[in-house]
């Protein structure tokens, strides 16, 4: 049974937010960090809370910590040591393997995200601009009361118009293929596969391989927690549109190239089901738009090229062990939209997204290292993900077709990584525990004695 009243809402709910803000924090002292956490805690809602009140709520808050952040909050060394190696190392140390090289390298990241002083993220999603403003001001007040807590940077999120469906700055419809957990009360859409064991995403539950194993200690800290891999990806909309114009004479041909790169038309309609022309009604229909496979329906990639983004990010029935590689995605777009006929304006815009999973190395890092950046994925020889792969102009993109395939060489980069980090997303009890935890060496107490199960102060009951 999933403990909906302890799991942070972001794991299981989507909120009707049109705006938002991420703030990245550093704690100068344990006391300051804990005071901040105690103060923000009352705004952090569980899945159960949000499910009950989402229609009335105006804002939704999530908090998560880096490994350094857990240490700054006073988590004992013995406990810190039980976290997985990749989380301890952090995203910066894993850059080469993740493909964060060249202009994507952490040396070029913005907002101090590559700093070891990055301790926490607070994710705000708000229903409207007014609430966004009010929340920022409320957070300012809280920060002013917490000594030594510094905002390293922040990023404002804005949905990209038109607002009737989620899409990125390139115009691709988003949120089409999300895994569903057993016991979550959600039904997977046709083609999305059976619900997965919750342990694939939430610590403390059985996963697709059996009972939970190797969880961080103590249990109160790990239970109902998860990991967030944050990625701030700049989208080079001007370069993307130039590329489409270069490879398509007519708007129809340009749409066709855009669809081949993604594997779906920008409307969301998958090429397996709509191979020759767009079908916006199909794209918008969640009962149909994910209902396809590759092995029988498109083994050679005549519809969706073998190296297309959606085929790489979810190879469906053409990869082994798929149920152990799934990820939950959350996030939003940032930056102003680039008007259709406007040239590139140099303003940064993109997506700031979270991959949520129970194992960063097995899920997020695998996807990044193998599915996205392995040049030989599906025996392609010299390709990387055309949308989010590490592109330096030396890779190609092949579009299978009869009688002879089309090969685009020297694919440019349409995205650049501008920042990222690994965070631990604790459950609500764990957050309360973190407001009181202290090192045995500081307090002269045993670790176990520092655990408090009681809600603190004004925590929501």
């Amino acid at each position, binding site marked *: 049974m999933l403990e909906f009243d302890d799991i942070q809402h972001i794991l299981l709910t989507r909120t009707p937010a049109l705006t938002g803000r991420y703030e990245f924090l550093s704690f100068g002292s344990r006391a300051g960090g804990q005071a901040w956490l105690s103060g923000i805690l009352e705004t952090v809602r569980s899945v159960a809370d949000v499910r009950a009140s989402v229609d009335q709520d105006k804002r939704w808050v999530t908090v998560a910590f880096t490994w350094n952040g857990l240490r700054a909050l006073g988590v004992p060394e013995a406990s810190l040591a039980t976290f997985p190696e990749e989380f301890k190392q952090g995203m910066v140390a894993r850059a080469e393997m993740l493909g964060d090289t060249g202009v994507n390298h952490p040396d070029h990241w913005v907002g101090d995200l590559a700093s070891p002083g990055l301790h926490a993220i607070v994710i705000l999603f708000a229903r409207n601009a007014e609430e966004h403003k009010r929340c920022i001001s409320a957070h300012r007040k809280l920060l002013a009361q917490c000594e030594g807590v510094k905002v390293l940077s922040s990023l404002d999120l804005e949905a990209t118009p038109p607002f009737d469906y989620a899409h990125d700055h390139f115009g691709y419809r988003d949120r089409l293929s999300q895994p569903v957990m057993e016991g979550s009360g959600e039904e997977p859409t046709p083609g999305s596969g059976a619900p997965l064991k919750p342990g694939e995403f939430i610590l403390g539950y059985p996963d697709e391989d*059996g009972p939970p194993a190797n969880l961080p200690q103590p249990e109160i800290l790990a239970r109902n927690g998860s990991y967030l891999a944050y990625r701030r990806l700049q989208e080079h909309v001007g370069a993307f549109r130039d590329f489409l114009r270069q490879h398509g004479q007519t708007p129809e041909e340009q749409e066709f190239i855009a669809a081949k790169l993604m594997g779906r038309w920008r409307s969301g309609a998958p090429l397996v089901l709509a191979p020759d022309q767009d079908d916006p009604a199909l794209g918008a229909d969640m009962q149909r738009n994910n209902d396809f496979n590759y092995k029988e329906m498109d083994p050679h990639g005549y519809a969706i090229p073998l190296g297309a983004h959606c085929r790489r990010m979810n190879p469906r029935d053409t990869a*082994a062990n798929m149920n*152990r590689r799934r990820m939950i995605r959350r996030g939003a777009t940032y930056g102003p939209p680039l008007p259709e006929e406007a040239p590139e304006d140099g303003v940064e815009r993109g997506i700031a997204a979270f991959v949520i999973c129970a194992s960063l190395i097995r899920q997020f*890092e695998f996807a990044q290292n193998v599915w996205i950046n392995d040049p030989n994925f599906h*025996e392609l020889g010299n390709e990387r993900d055309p949308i989010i792969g590490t592109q330096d102009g030396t890779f190609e993109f092949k579009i299978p077709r009869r009688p002879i395939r089309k090969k685009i060489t020297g694919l440019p980069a349409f995205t650049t990584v501008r920042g990222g980090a690994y965070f631990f997303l604790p459950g609500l009890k764990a957050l309360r525990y973190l407001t009181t935890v202290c090192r045995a060496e500081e307090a002269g107490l045993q670790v176990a004695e520092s655990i408090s199960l009681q809600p603190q102060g004004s925590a929501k009951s």
Partner: protein
Amino acid sequence: MTATAKPAASKPAVAKQGDWTKPAAMAIPKEGFFKLEQGRYGPIFPKTPACYGFTIIAKIKPGREQAIREYGKKIEDTIAALPDGLAVLKLHYLRWVLFDIGKDTYFMYQGIFDTDFDKYTEDAVALFSKYGINTVFENLEGFPEDWKTNPAAFVKFAREHQCPSFLEYGEYPYVSADEIKKALKLKAAFSDMLDQMQ
């Protein structure tokens, strides 16, 4: 040009990947790689003219030789019943050898395959568990008891017992098993076509 010896870390001039017509050999530094490149679980070993591969050598627990030998037959039967069982591993060949050094018996697991092992580690662990290949590993000294739930421990064992080649050779360098199978299928299709035209 000076007479200075080439540093061991520089990559030798060999047939380019994709040129299967020119047999090639590659001498490999002692560490097993030319340039330290981190994978998810540790350094990545290079692709050579003989593709990717490993040679794991480990001492077996005393008295387990017969159990391991008998296991060979079980794998034979498993593959006969499920020919695609190991397809995920993109293998060319596996060689399992038992040999003695003094009073001890050692097991050598040599695999030649087309994917860098680091990339598909968890898939390999899952397969080993599914087909009981673990039975062999569990007869080796030092094999981690929690290997099923701890791919990192499994990888650590494999890396600690990996003996990198110092030379690898390919008569048709860098060619993948899939490419070979495609070529043979094509040959069969042409042959069939010619028969049909008689």
